[in-house]
């Protein structure tokens, strides 16, 4: 591990953390490509290592958000507790497919959600009530 790698990791870490605090993700979308490009990890190793860093980022992010009153603790904990089946399935699949498949699938998922989020960012502001459930089928 040389100085360039260390500086790269520090920069990735800061940017990914900022993303986590801004948009409520753990920072994995930047941790993973960052670890591949700057540290030379494989896609699978980068994804796995990213998960470790995410734990710290998400813990601090959740604590900060709770101070702003943006946290529904019960729902958040329930989602975490109910997740093991999905986690085991996803992890097993990641270890079963090729590196290139993993890279392309990762990129495809990012593009899909970029598209759906861009649509939401661009739509006219005519809703946004705090309590009214959004129509679950309308947005597909």
């Amino acid at each position, binding site marked *: 591990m040389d100085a360039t790698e260390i500086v790269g990791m*520090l920069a990735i870490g800061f940017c990914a953390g900022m993303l986590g605090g801004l948009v*409520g993700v753990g920072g994995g979308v930047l941790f993973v490509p960052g670890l591949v490009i700057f540290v030379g990890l494989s896609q699978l190793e980068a994804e796995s290592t990213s998960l470790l860093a*995410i734990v710290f980022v998400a813990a601090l992010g959740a604590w900060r*958000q709770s101070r702003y009153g943006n946290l529904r603790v019960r729902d958040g*904990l329930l989602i975490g507790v109910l997740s093991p089946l999905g986690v085991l399935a*996803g992890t097993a699949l990641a270890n079963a497919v090729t590196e290139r498949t993993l890279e392309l699938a990762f990129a495809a998922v990012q593009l899909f959600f970029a598209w759906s989020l861009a649509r939401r960012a661009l739509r006219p502001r005519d809703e946004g009530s705090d309590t009214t459930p959004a129509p679950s089928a309308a947005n597909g």
Partner: protein
Amino acid sequence: MSSRLPRLAVIATVGGAFSGLFGVGGGTVIVPLLILWFGYREREATGTSLLAIVVIAALAAATQGTYGNVHVREGILIGIPALAGVVAGTALQQRIPERSVAAIFAVLLVASAAVLIF
């Protein structure tokens, strides 16, 4: 309540699968689903998702660890400066419109996807 729990379980399973498969927290899935199914506002979905991610990412990291895929030293080296980034990002989020948050997220996803593809 009876209709909330199954939907939370679906979010948990899908989010967990994304986390284990792609090395992300699962917020990419959890945030939009909380908004779509439960009428969460952007910032509530963000905060609640982060709490869920703590548990999900810990489970997924431990599972990947059993496969021997986790580089602990590198994980810590990016995780520590990320904490400073979280403080900056969370403070910034209170000062910009929710639709801008969605737009920033979209741009960053496209950029990192392009890196992976090319």
